[in-house]
């Protein structure tokens, strides 16, 4: 099994899923920037991050990050409301947007990676926090410009090693 999924396919999946969610659910066209790789080492961050775990023959994480201000604007557009602060409704809306984007990235990657399960999204808002995974694979990061601000969609997936069949204690191997 290869150690990485096809990066071009992953970038295309992120671009397509993000553009689709923004144009369909928010009526907003967003512009994709130059994708890059980021080491899995966590670095201090600010703002809102939506995270979803992916499991299967390939396991990993997908995330959507932006500033609190942009999260308020996106949620306002999504729900046709106005939000003066990042409250529970904004976190819920960002969780659902993360779910739709990463879910559709997952759907697009399943042809190569096989069927994958998805966790329930988790959303964090804060200042000077770090979000990391236990994976050693680099993140594939696709930045987008939205309303003059930056939004990033990231994914990291690594192959799940085949687990040897468990042997009950005290049992001799067959054969």
């Amino acid at each position: 099994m290869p150690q990485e999924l096809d990066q071009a396919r992953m970038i295309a999946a992120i671009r397509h899923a993000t553009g689709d969610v923004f144009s369909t659910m928010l009526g907003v066209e967003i512009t994709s920037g130059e994708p890059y790789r980021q080491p899995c080492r966590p670095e201090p961050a600010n703002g809102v991050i939506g995270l979803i775990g992916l499991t299967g023959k390939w396991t990993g994480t997908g995330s959507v990050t932006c500033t609190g201000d942009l999260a308020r604007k996106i949620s306002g557009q999504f729900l046709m409301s106005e939000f003066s602060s990042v409250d529970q409704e904004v976190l819920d809306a960002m969780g659902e947007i993360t779910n739709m984007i990463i879910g559709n990235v997952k759907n697009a990657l399943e042809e190569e990676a096989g069927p994958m399960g998805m966790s329930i999204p988790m959303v964090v808002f804060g200042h000077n926090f770090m979000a990391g995974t236990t994976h050693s694979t680099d993140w594939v990061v696709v930045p987008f410009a939205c309303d003059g601000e930056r939004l990033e969609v990231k994914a990291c997936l690594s192959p799940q090693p085949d687990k040897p069949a468990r042997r009950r204690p005290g049992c001799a191997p067959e054969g």
Partner: protein
Amino acid sequence: MPVDVLIVDDSAAIRKILQRVLAQANLGVGKVYEAADGREAMDAVKQQPVGLILSDINMPNMDGLQFLGELRSHDQWKHVPVLMISTEGSQTKVMEAVQLGAQGFVRKPFTADQIKEKLAGIL
């Protein structure tokens, strides 16, 4: 006669959007109830009969497919139309939903027109 509807989704945002779509659809929808997962949805249908259910798949506690299976195992809810609305787009999940008795499947992200079109076919 207006049809009462149950919306099942762990996202309050999606429940709100679907409420708005139903209000605009002009399809004879009556009261709209909400549940945040399959377990809450089972409690809701026990308390209040509904004529249509819109359900997500990926939810905590009891997911949409487990809910659909549980619903169909009771005679009184065997024929309540269920429209699945989910990010899950794999053929396996769609087939599983159809085999469990879902009347339709809409993939997120969705437009209001896609939901209205599906509902017009069901109601």
